[in-house]
């Protein structure tokens, strides 16, 4: 197997797993009795072991294996977590990191791990006295120990351990030598069948020659396998003999004591060979971990920058496609037309895929909130209902990755400081159960995430008093602040208004962190609050890239895009139905009066001398609960577009929220309906 193509993934994932190990080990140190954390570390170590063994990095595999053994013992309460033990495990993780870094820089990832393996072994055997000695005394002592043991402490040491462990758990170990017939045609296929049979019965820990050589038919008629199984010898023999083209099967048990002798005399099982790519190791507790599989190869990780490059290249392709379309419509060549149509279809699909690769629905972040809210509400003795709106709103991946923590802080804050206790709520004439609404939507060039609660709101007096006592504010300036400015004081560093500091929020770091995280994403956070009625935290995030659906409309010869999210409906109205109300043209839309906005006038187009049609095309848009009708020349149609910024040079264009590039390569401007409705 050529493993080079997986190298990047291996390094990337190894680093992640090591990071996870580190974090969890730190936690474990704080909560030595939390076996759940041990499981987390165990899982990371286990995955790492599997990956490194597959990639042929035996030193990593053997070290992680020993780490696993120790963790397993901790997990099974055989060893108590002490900081000495953790020191060694931490050192093991450090070693692993060094090895991964070495591999990344093109090295072999080899490192003398014998010292650590020995320490880990010692821990596992419960000889913590020696362990302490090892970790606390000077390394010269350790060196001597290693020198004495170097010959046996090679890589195969852990296999010996594995085999003897398996005996304890009631497994048998066999060496199976299989002789294929001389006229065997499909040697690799036979090998595969044998392996398949054996893997069903137990765990193959070695083969001679190695799996890859076997797969390449790089052997004579004979090969050997070391197997750990609960099956007996005869059953195995019978099972293997079912595979055709097999001359003979010889099965020799490996006994506990005779293990080493056996291997030396028979020479069939090459335990000494250091390269073991493709080999599987036995797990000390197969049943327990059979559910954990090696990392799936069905997803790959792609650097987002690459997606950006892909996107830009694709947009150039779209422009050329547009040119091709117009050329083909001029030439009227059926073959060309057909080809262009096909290209259009394919590139349309491609566009969808490329855009979607970067976008993920915000529900990936929102999903964890309901559980969190339930738990928090219980902890705080409050009744809270979480309402999530717009979970399907898609956000750029980079934003999704960052937005989780700030939202957690905001929700905690709303629960802790916003929503009152059931008794207080009842006293204030509110329903006992508080409501928190989490809302996500696109608007123009931004994504908004709003968190609204119907709780107590921001108490102006308390906030000002607190801010003054914290030195954030002087009493003189306090008087001049608007309610909104006061509300936003709670985002300031070192602010905490909770009268008693709870462990849910109120450490005075939460909202400060929220603000800085959001600002680092180029966004804003605003707070609207009415005392006694609740608060609205609005997070506005810019879109570096976003797909939105728009309605393309024509104004004279210019094309504009109106976001579908703002559109209620489109209508064709009779000019005679337009009424004048106080210098404002309005229409009667099913009983409600809707003001008309002439987009051409707004966009400073020459409208004089144009004949007025009997019918007018109107797009009804909304902002909140207010409606407006935008008068346009004609509707072109609905389209998914990529939202683009107009660039920093033009950052203040009235009623335009951005631009997009149409199929023909032209730029169309996107109408910002929010600024058209007061």
């Amino acid at each position: 197997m050529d493993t080079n193509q997986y190298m990047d993934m291996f390094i990337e994932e190894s680093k992640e797993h090591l990071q996870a190990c580190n974090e969890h080990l730190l936690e474990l140190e704080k909560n030595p009795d939390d076996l759940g954390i041990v499981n987390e570390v165990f899982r990371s170590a286990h995955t790492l072991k599997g990956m490194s063994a597959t990639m042929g990095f035996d030193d990593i595999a053997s070290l992680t294996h020993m780490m696993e053994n120790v963790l397993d013992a901790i997990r099974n309460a055989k060893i108590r977590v002490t900081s000495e033990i953790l020191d060694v495990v931490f050192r093991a993780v450090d070693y692993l990191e060094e090895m991964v870094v070495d591999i990344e820089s093109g090295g072999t990832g080899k490192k003398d791990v014998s010292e650590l393996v020995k320490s880990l072994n010692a821990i596992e055997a419960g000889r913590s006295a020696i362990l302490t000695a090892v970790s606390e005394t000077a390394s010269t002592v350790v060196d001597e120990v290693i020198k004495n043991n170097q010959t046996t402490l090679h890589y195969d040491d852990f296999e010996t351990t594995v085999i003897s462990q398996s005996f304890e758990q009631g497994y048998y170990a066999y060496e199976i030598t299989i002789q294929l017939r001389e006229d065997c045609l499909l040697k690799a296929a036979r090998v595969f069948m044998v392996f398949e049979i054996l893997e069903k019965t137990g765990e193959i820990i070695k083969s001679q020659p190695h799996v890859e050589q076997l797969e390449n038919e790089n052997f004579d008629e004979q090969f050997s396998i070391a197997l750990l199984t609960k099956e007996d010898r005869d059953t195995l023999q019978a099972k293997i003999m079912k595979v055709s083209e097999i001359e003979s099967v010889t099965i020799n048990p490996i006994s506990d004591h005779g293990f080493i002798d056996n291997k030396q005399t028979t020479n069939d099982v090459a335990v000494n060979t250091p390269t073991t790519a493709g080999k599987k190791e036995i797990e000390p507790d197969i049943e327990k971990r059979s559910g954990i599989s090696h990392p799936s190869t069905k997803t790959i990780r792609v650097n987002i920058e690459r997606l950006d490059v892909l996107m830009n290249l694709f947009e150039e392709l779209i422009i050329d496609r547009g040119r091709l379309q117009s050329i083909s419509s001029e030439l009227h060549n059926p073959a060309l037309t057909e080809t262009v149509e096909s290209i259009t279809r394919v590139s349309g699909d491609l566009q969808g895929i490329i855009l979607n690769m970067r976008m993920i629905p915000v529900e990936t972040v929102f999903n964890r909130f309901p559980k969190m809210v339930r738990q928090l509400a219980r902890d705080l003795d409050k009744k809270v209902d979480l309402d999530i709106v717009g979970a399907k709103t898609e956000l750029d991946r980079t934003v999704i990755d960052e937005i989780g923590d700030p939202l957690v802080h905001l929700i905690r804050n709303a629960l802790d400081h916003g929503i009152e206790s059931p008794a207080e709520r009842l006293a204030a004439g509110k329903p006992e159960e508080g409501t928190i609404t989490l809302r996500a939507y696109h608007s123009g060039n931004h994504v908004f995430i709003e968190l609204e609660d119907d709780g107590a709101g921001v108490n102006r007096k308390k906030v000002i008093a607190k801010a003054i006592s914290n030195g954030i504010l002087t009493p003189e300036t306090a008087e001049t602040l608007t309610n909104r400015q006061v509300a936003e004081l709670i985002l300031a560093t070192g602010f905490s208004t909770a009268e008693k500091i709870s462990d849910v929020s109120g450490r005075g770091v939460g909202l400060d962190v929220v603000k800085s995280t959001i600002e680092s994403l180029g966004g804003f956070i605003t707070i609207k609050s009415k005392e006694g009625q609740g608060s609205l935290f609005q997070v506005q995030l810019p879109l570096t890239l976003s797909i939105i659906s728009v309605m393309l409309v024509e104004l004279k010869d210019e094309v504009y895009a109106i976001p579908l999210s703002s559109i209620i409906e489109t209508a064709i109205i009779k000019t005679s139905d337009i009424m004048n109300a106080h210098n404002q043209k309005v229409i009667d839309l099913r009983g409600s009066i809707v003001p008309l906005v002439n987009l051409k006038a707004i966009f400073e187009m020459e409208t004089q001398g144009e004949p007025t049609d009997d019918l007018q095309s109107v797009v009804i848009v909304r902002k909140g609960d207010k409606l407006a009708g935008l008068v346009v020349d004609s509707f072109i149609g609905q389209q998914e577009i990529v939202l683009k910024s107009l660039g920093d040079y033009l950052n203040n264009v009235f009623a335009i929220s951005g631009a997009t590039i149409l199929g023909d390569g032209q730029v169309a401007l996107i109408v910002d309906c929010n600024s058209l409705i007061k």
Partner: protein
Amino acid sequence: MTEIAQQTDKKVIVFQLMDKEYAIGVDVVQSIEKLLSVTRVPKMPSYIKGVINLKGVVTPIVDLRERFGMVVDDYTDSTRILIISLVEYDVGLIVDAANDVLDIPVESIEAQPEVVGSVKSDFISGVAKVERRLLLLLNLHKVLEPVNRVRTDEF
């Protein structure tokens, strides 16, 4: 300036507006494009012609003739857009023609004489005489300044 001593030549792109030749350092010129279709942006000063699609990036376009208050003329085959890439933004400048890339000796750059043509003097950072040609060096930051920072972040 002190660094002039070490630096002997300045590489510039020479372009034409009316009958005068102007120069911009090559380091800020990302590319020179033929005139592309420009989408008008409403409510902008007249010298901002709109935006173009520059290989998938929406780039604003400034007509230098209008910016300098010169006579506006129809675009011709030789009309070019110089794509300027600054740290803060990219912007395209419409010029009558882009003629040349020149190395001008730094010593030949002089402060601007009191009156040079009709262009507001702030836009010119210096004048270089190369052989018999007179090159006006643009002060890009001044040229692109006004539209630039009218922020409406009201709270």
